[in-house]
């Protein structure tokens, strides 16, 4: 069990295994495929203040051991997501953590102003993307004004100074997001995007070890987990919890059942 607390609000994630943002939709879309009740929390698809259109061009490029995903995090915007999914969040059997996409503190303030009064939301995961330490600190500081527990998500390949900035700004945990990379599409055009697949796991494990040593707040590990043994490896390396990403689209039973049991051990 993982308890994340701001002193005024508490988020209990039990078991400390959850989906990564962006893999299970906005609420209950994956009900027929993944049992959310087996997870400790549900993370929404990334949500921005204004609607975001899908990225242009090729969005999925496979490579040996994984694939690159370049979607642009399309979503209909916060207003529409809240209208369409708030009631569904209330019906989910686990606490809901809203993953927020914001590039400025103004955006964070406006999103927090809407989120903090919604009782169906138990926490916020703030996607910091490629923010530097200063921006990361400012964004997290703005988010923690909501008094909701704030998780600072950084790419697994980000420098530790970003995670430290998030910690110092008041984040209750750091979560690892997919690394960024680039591949050429069939026309030769270079496409930049997020990397998923078993090939990412070594990066995730290395980052977990390092951040677990350097941070005082919990680390939620993620990246390339495709079986339950890897969940245990990350927990043993110092992760306080594990987020599952693309394995939930292929064979979730490889991680879900055993992972839940292992994390309880």
């Amino acid at each position, binding site marked *: 069990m993982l308890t994340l607390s701001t002193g005024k609000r508490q988020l209990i994630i039990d078991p400390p295994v959850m989906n990564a943002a*962006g*893999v*299970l*939709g906005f609420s209950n*879309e*994956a009900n*027929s*495929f993944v049992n959310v009740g087996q997870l400790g929390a549900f993370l929404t*698809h990334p949500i921005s203040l204004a609607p975001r*259109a*899908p*990225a*242009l061009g*090729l*969005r*999925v490029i*496979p490579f040996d*051991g*994984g*694939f690159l*995903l370049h*979607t642009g*995090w*399309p*979503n*209909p915007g916060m207003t529409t997501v809240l209208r369409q999914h708030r009631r569904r969040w209330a019906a989910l059997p686990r606490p809901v953590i809203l993953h927020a996409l914001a590039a400025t503190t103004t955006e964070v303030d406006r999103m927090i102003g809407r989120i903090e009064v919604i009782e169906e939301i138990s926490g916020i995961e703030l996607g910091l993307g490629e923010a530097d330490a200063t921006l990361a600190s400012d964004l997290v500081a703005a988010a923690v004004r909501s008094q909701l527990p704030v998780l600072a998500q950084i790419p697994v390949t980000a420098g530790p100074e970003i995670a430290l900035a998030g910690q110092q700004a008041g984040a209750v945990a750091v979560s690892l997001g997919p690394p960024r990379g680039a591949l050429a599409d069939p026309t030769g055009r270079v496409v930049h995007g997020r990397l*998923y*697949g*078993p*090939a990412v796991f070594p990066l995730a494990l290395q980052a977990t070890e390092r951040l677990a040593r350097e941070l005082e707040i919990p680390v939620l590990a993620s990246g390339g987990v*495709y*079986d339950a043994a890897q969940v245990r490896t990350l927990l043993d390396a110092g992760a306080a919890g594990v987020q599952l990403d*693309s*394995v939930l*689209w*292929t*064979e979730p039973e*490889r991680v879900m059942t055993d992972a839940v049991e292992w994390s309880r051990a």
Partner: protein
Amino acid sequence: MSRTPAQVASIRLDPDGSSVARLICPPTAIPAAGQFGLALRPGEASPLRTAIFPRELHADGFTTPAARTWQPGDVLDLLGPVGRGFRPPPNARRWALGGVGRPPDRLLPLLQRGIEVGAGVAVWPPLPAERLPPQVEIVQDQADALAWADYVALDVLPEALDEIGARLRRQPGTLAGAAIQVLIAPAMPCGLGLCQACAIAGRRGRQLACLDGPVFDWPLTDRKAV
């Protein structure tokens, strides 16, 4: 939509050099024309499932292009059928089936259905003659086929959506009365409407190829593809 075992009964090499697998699965798992399944070999930590469209439909399964790693005897984990398939109007009797930017092999199950209901069927671009029933007309002039048809089914590369939209708008006959459906199949990593990677901008806003398609009614998709 459910997960079902599908056995690779055999793999053949077609005259065009492609490997085609014969899959055996329960009838409820067989994709209809325009639908697809998402397959993987269990236990290999495959990063993604592979989207497979049927080429030929059988009572106990279907044929589909074989993935590189498949072997006869493999039992695949098949998720599906996924998406909305082709829905020809019941009264349509002149079917024009075409590939835009790709061969029309994913239209073959629809072609077979057209023959079964007694429709006249024309197809382009050409497929090897041995793969087509004799009743099918191979189209040389697409404009003639589009003007003749009362039902048009196209398999379009997402990148070619603008091109086909412009072509159809130049065909007054098709605007007048033909029902037009377009198969658009970008990469669909999850097939469950979760990742948003297959989003397509249409007249009704953002839609997902895996859930709202991959077969769309035109002009619902007569917008710049994303």
